[in-house]
């Protein structure tokens, strides 16, 4: 399993627009902390990779399993009655006096579904995990828009998934950002499995499902298993705050769950912290192992990771982006 990204407290200062430019670029209902323009320009050069070609509805920027009219040559086959004569390769016929039809890989669009965990636990951390998830989702969604993919955002809160309307084209970026900005954390406890099932039911065809969650749910493994079973390509971005990775706790404490209000009495000392870290590592390793088995991609991230590093280095290295 690959390790988490190197945390960066601040994004690069170069290319960051000033406040006036941000106001001119971003609509008023978009959280200005989520994005800036220079970052979006960089994202336009990226593409969400898929392990296998997908069958889409519209012609998009991706290779389809269907051979069709496109510019990328794939193969030849013998002419059969009824074939489009425009696909005959007359040069080959001139040399071999046999009719061959040129086959092209047809580029089609896919649906990129961004599942953002909006449970109360995602509000913890400095910076909050939910904010980091929104920014990462916005970046990935913009990449999808720029690749002429259909992008849809779903917030997992409570026991349901609130799915926003799909969008296509980089011109819809503001809507994407508005959709992300409108995601609010759940008030009560969140059943991540029920919400994920709800989201899975809303999927149309195969595509890319990107789950951004802290996976702090007893059924998190089943969430991964069931999302992977939808046939879509699953990418799990496991977001944990620095406080969860390196707890700054000491002494005799009663730990209260922010979602359920349940308490756990624990005496936090060095051996306990060591045991916690061991437990955390095993927990993440189990997710990584499960994702590998289900042909999904698992990336664990600290919430203070630098988003540019994540997009341009870490996700490219992990073959999520290309």
């Amino acid at each position, binding site marked *: 399993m690959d390790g988490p990204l190197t945390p960066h407290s601040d994004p690069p200062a170069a290319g960051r627009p000033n406040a006036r430019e941000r106001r001119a670029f971003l609509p008023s209902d978009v959280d200005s902390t989520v994005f800036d323009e220079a970052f979006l320009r960089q994202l336009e050069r990226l593409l969400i990779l898929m392990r296998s070609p997908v069958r889409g509805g519209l012609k998009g920027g991706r290779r389809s399993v269907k051979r069709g009219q496109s510019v990328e040559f794939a193969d030849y086959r013998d002419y059969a009655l009824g074939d489009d004569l425009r696909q005959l390769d007359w040069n080959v016929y001139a040399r071999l006096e046999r009719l061959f039809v040129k086959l092209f890989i047809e580029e089609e669009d896919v649906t990129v579904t961004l599942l953002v965990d909006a449970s*109360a636990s995602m509000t913890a951390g400095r910076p909050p995990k939910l904010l980091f998830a929104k920014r990462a989702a916005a970046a990935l969604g913009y990449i999808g828009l720029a690749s002429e993919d259909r992008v849809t955002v779903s917030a997992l809160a409570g026991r349901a998934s609130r799915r926003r309307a799909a969008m296509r084209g980089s011109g819809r970026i503001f809507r994407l950002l508005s959709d992300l900005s409108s995601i609010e954390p759940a008030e009560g406890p969140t059943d991540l499995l029920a919400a994920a099932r709800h989201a899975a039911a809303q999927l149309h065809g195969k595509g890319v499902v990107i789950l951004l969650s802290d996976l702090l749910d007893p059924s998190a493994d089943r969430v991964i298993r069931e999302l992977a079973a939808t046939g879509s390509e699953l990418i799990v971005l496991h977001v944990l705050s620095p406080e969860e990775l390196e707890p700054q706790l000491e002494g005799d404490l009663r730990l209260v769950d922010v979602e359920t209000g349940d308490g756990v009495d624990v005496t936090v000392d060095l051996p306990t912290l060591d045991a916690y870290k061991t437990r955390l590592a095993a927990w993440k390793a189990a997710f990584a192992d499960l994702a590998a088995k289900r042909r999904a991609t698992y990336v664990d991230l600290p919430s203070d990771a630098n988003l540019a590093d994540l997009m341009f280095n870490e996700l490219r290295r992990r073959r999520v982006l290309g």
Partner: protein
Amino acid sequence: MPFTTPLALLGLLFVPAVLAMYLLKLRRDEAVVPSTLLWTRLVADVEANAPWQRLRRSLLLLLQLLLVAVLALLAARPFLERPAGLARDVVVVLDTSASMGATDVTPTRLGAAKAAVLDALRDLPTGGKVSVVAADRTARIVVNETTDLGRVRQALAAIEPSSSSGNLGDALELAGKLAARSGDAQIVVGTDGALATPPAGAIEAPIRVLAVGRSHRNQAIVALAVRTSPSAVTRSVFISIANLDLDYAQRRIELRGPGGLIEVRDVSLDPQARADVVIDDVPADVGTIEVRLVGSDPAVSAAPDDLATDDTAWAVVPPDQRRLVLLVGEGDPYLETALSYLPNVELYGVTPAEYGPRTERQDGRPWDLVIFEGTLPATLPQTPILAIAPPGSSPLGQVTGTLKDPGIGSLSPDEPILRYVDLSTTHIAEAARLTSPDWARTIIPGPGGAPLLYTGIRAGLPTGVLAFDPRHSDLPLQVAFPVLLANLTGELMGGSAAPSEAVQPGTPVSLPIPPDATGLAVTRPDGSVVELVPQSAESRSATFTGTDQLGIYSVTPHLAADSAPSATASGPSASTAPVSPSAIVPSPGPSGSAAVPSPVPVDPNAPARFAVDLFDVDESTISPGSAATIEALGRPSRASPAPSGTAGGTSAAATQRPTARDELWVPVVLIVLIALCVEWAVYQRDAIIRLRRGLSGRLGRPVDGSA
């Protein structure tokens, strides 16, 4: 195990309190976390490893219970009993004489004796009393009958080695009397046993000697004197060195004056022998000298012998002051001859007819002594007077008749005027029968209470009266005559304000007070000043007892505010030329003038000095003596409860004697400290591990992160 204060074991009641604190539910601070998912699973894991956690908490609990128990034990003062080795009452005699300053044992013999005494006192029975007597020249009680060993320890630490000779006999006698107060007493003596004359007399208590010292390596200055050479220009210094060692010794003598080194001599000293060294041509302007006995090789820094006290001696060079003596009489050749041989005396003579105001000296300096031989003027001069065979009654004494062939009465052997004077063969043909005045002290008593010689301070002036004319006796033909005359004139002229010979340390010194002085200030060698005042207005001397330091003491008289040491009554005398001794003529002066000589001589008011030196061969002989000799002085020990058998006491007293106690607070305190350290380490285990990881991380070594 017995306890001194068993009630303190009630402190064990704190054990339930500690247990209760552990049993009470811990109040925990609340901390909100995103999820307790991982912590819940962790608690499950911790529960699986609970034995160690419980053990850890149990270890802290056990340590705290142990601390409470041990502290209660400590407060109860446990002890072990064993047979007491000493009697119930112990009198410690600590020899503090000069030889105890020998450094053949570390740090000194006195230090070793103190340690030995404290070690011996550990055998003191419970409730035993201790008295401490310090013995040097005199014996003094430092601590009297105390059960507080801390006070004894403090008193022993405060005892300093003295520079004086030791007198262990007096101290043992005093200790014997202290011991006699109790039925079960013992004397413990800390000494080197280097006693020239072992103390005599039986002591009614067993004596146990703690002998210290093992060396006899010592050379000492045992005599030092300064004499004026016949030329009266330079002085000669006589030094006597004694080698008290059994080996040959090579030493160096350094003669120092106030200005620095004067002379250096190397001396070779045979074992157990003395060597005399004479150093001539010491400049006359040297007031004091210091003689040091140093090693023959200056490059060697080690001490040449084991006792440094007797390696330095001081001496005061006697003042070369000329005294002016006026003899008024018809001319007694015996008397004139004897007076003319007195050192540093300028003798002038006039007949009774010539005596008068014209005999006042022209230089204004008063006569140091006026001797009236067979005559007395109507008005006595305000100077010291010696009247020989006064013709009639006067303020000097009433003449009531004549004594024919008077016998000499019983003489006091301590009379300084009669020192070295033998009058046993003296015969007197005729003497005046005198009545001794109130101020007078009879020196030579005659028949019927009529004194033949008396002296005293009359109206502040030294005065002496000899009742007979020497020519009417056979005294001038005897050796005693010039000696008596020297002593008598020396007494009347006051002599030096300080002893001319070296004083033994610790010896009281009688210091004469000049007539117009109100007191004396004595500056000791260490710079401290002791003020002396006469006990009464008539008293012309004061006793100084603080001669415990070796070195030069300076005596400065405090003059009265209205007196001046200078001669203010020289009057119109014009001539200041000294009168030749051969020209015994009165000084010319206006007849009838009121030229009254100053009653205060110049010399007595000048600062005087005297030296205190050890000069004691017996004390410098540091060879350790036999402890058995001293122990034999005490009553034999009839019962010996101590395993060593060195202590004693009566059998009845010994059987009733309580045991000695050894309190066990040292191991208990050690246990407390170790328990505290272990508890701290257990409690701070996390911090220690973090520190270790931090250090290992900085050093770049892998850290074992397992809990």
